[in-house]
């Protein structure tokens, strides 16, 4: 089995290289010249030339591309264009915040989504099932930044139960939790809908499988069949969706982080892209991709553990 994972790791590493190559070519092609965007209106032409030369923006793209890669090879991931600070520490410092948001968000949606999925199977084809079906479709359609604003207006402005922006100061755990509630809610509404639909669909399929017929005919109670047998077999597709979703969220959810003013990878990458801060964007995307690949590996390991057929291949 280790050989199997070894091969998979190699493939995923090659994917990382592929994505990184794709990223660096992409960010160079984005129009808009950084010097104009960064420097103030009062900058004189000489200052502009100085900056362009310093940043190496006047070199032909291929040379810059090579230079960039040569530096990466030596562990230098480039620097902020304006302040010259090295990029990697800043990007890595954003990861824990995104990690917390992504993990809490995905597990919260997983829990609620599964409960609703099981309920809708338990009461299959009743009115309750159809209502849940429509509700999950509505949840799916919730656009993140609209949800974020709505939750803020209701819970922060009107009811003032939770703070609107920020992450709470370092020591104060209660504050950090209170700052986490609204972003997690805004993040997980669409995921709850998505997971509920998947759980319901997979359970529906397993409900008509042979082994469920055998279990039924041996008198095993319905609740036990759904929880033990159907759900256990639903874990595999569910894990793939949840863990890849978690990986994508590790790439940071752009809207949630910028509206709730939370530090995060997604916001960092998008601000860097809009300010054409190439090195920050590329480093950010690389870190996000590495996290995503770790998530994919995790998914495959969990699938192997859950499904003996893969493990003993």
């Amino acid at each position, binding site marked *: 089995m280790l050989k199997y994972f070894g091969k998979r790791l190699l493939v995923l590493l090659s994917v990382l290289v592929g994505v990184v190559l794709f990223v660096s070519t992409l960010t160079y092609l984005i129009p808009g010249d950084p010097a104009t965007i960064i420097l103030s209106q009062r900058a004189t032409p000489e200052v502009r030339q100085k900056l362009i030369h310093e940043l190496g923006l006047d070199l032909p793209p291929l040379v810059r591309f090579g230079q960039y890669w040569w530096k990466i090879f030596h562990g230098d991931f480039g620097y902020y264009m304006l302040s010259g600070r090295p990029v990697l520490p800043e990007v890595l410092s954003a990861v824990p915040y995104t990690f917390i948001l992504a993990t809490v968000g995905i597990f919260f949606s997983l829990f609620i989504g599964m409960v609703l999925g099981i309920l809708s199977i338990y009461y299959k084809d009743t009115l309750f099932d159809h209502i849940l079906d429509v509700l999950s479709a509505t949840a799916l359609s919730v656009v993140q930044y609209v949800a974020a604003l709505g939750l803020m207006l209701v819970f922060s402005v009107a009811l003032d139960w939770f703070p609107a922006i920020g992450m709470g100061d370092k020591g104060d755990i209660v504050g950090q939790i209170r700052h986490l509630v609204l972003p997690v809610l805004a993040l997980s509404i669409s995921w709850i809908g998505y997971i509920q639909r998947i759980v319901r669909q997979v359970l529906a399929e397993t409900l*008509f*499988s*042979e*082994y469920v*017929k*055998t*279990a*039924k*005919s*041996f*008198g*095993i*109670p*319905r609740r*036990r069949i759904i929880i*033990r*047998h159907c759900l*256990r*077999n639903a874990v595999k597709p569910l894990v793939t969706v949840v863990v890849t979703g978690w990986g994508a969220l590790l790439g940071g959810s752009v809207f949630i982080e910028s509206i709730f003013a939370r530090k995060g990878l997604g916001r960092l990458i998008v601000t860097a892209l809009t300010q054409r801060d190439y090195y920050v964007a590329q480093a950010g995307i690389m870190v996000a991709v590495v996290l995503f690949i770790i998530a994919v590996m995790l998914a495959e390991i969990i699938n192997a553990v*859950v*499904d*003996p*057929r893969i493990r*003993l291949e």
Partner: protein
Amino acid sequence: MDKEVILEIRNLSVRYRTRKGPIMPVANVSLRVREGECLGIAGESGCGKSTLALAVMKLLPPNARISTGSILLNGEDLVPLSEKEYGRRIWGKRIIMISQNPHDALDPVFRVRDQLEEILWVHEKSQPGNHTAQRESHGHEIERILTGMGIPDISRVLGAYPHQLSGGMKQRILTAMAFFCNPSILIADEPTTALDTTIAAQVTEMFKDLMKAHSTSLVYISHDLALLSELSTSVAVMYAGEIVEYGKTADIASKPMHPYTTALLAALPSASKSRLDSIPGRVPDLSNPTRLCQFSPRCREKGGWCTEEKPELLEVTPGHWARCSKFLTTDTDRSIHGAR
């Protein structure tokens, strides 16, 4: 001498919604299963025998419904029962069914031991008396049951996952567990079809021993008449959703009445026969059942009377019914439905 009737199916019909419109794979079938006996149901594939079994077990797929008739278990009609009531009183306690295809019959993600222990636990919970049997004792009990059934190398089998075992092994395990649960009726839906002959013979032997050891009455579905004649006390032959002949095994084996049964018996290989007769034509399409005798297009003994009206299931000799107009001339009109 007849034993008491435990399960009676009275003109049961099942309706399927399919792509080509509604069809009736089971058309007002009536049968009786006596206690401790084995009723064999024979017929070519597509004649509705499995649908009949699923109907009795209330495991019909979503696009099928019991349209008419009733299923009486010790006098209680099961058709109106809900799935919940089936779960509480019937499944695993009064009736158990073993499916035709052993390969998917066990949950792929659980070890065999866990699934058997679950069945055991459920079974014990339903027994009156205390439920404090510990988990260890389950383990021993299972080994005791399986060794009793002559299944070799128990520890490997129990520790394995379903996909690591052969079809035959899985079928034997399921049969052993079914008999252990001691249901009043065990429905075996062609348990040996998916197995090769040697293993099939072992499984059949197993059924015979278990029949003797337990008081369970068996409904054995197969397309192999030879097998049924060994195993069952009475046989019902089905064709295109209808019972065409029904009676004691001995009567049917010796004096088959319905042309279809005679043709089936003729098709069986035996030492004396050099060439096998085959039945010309194909199984009729169930989506437009004829008003007349379904078998007439392939019947050798076709006569004038076949085209007049639909033959009834008539009791030609006591305890031996056949659905063929040729018996009408001897004005025997005691059809199955009128029987006591």
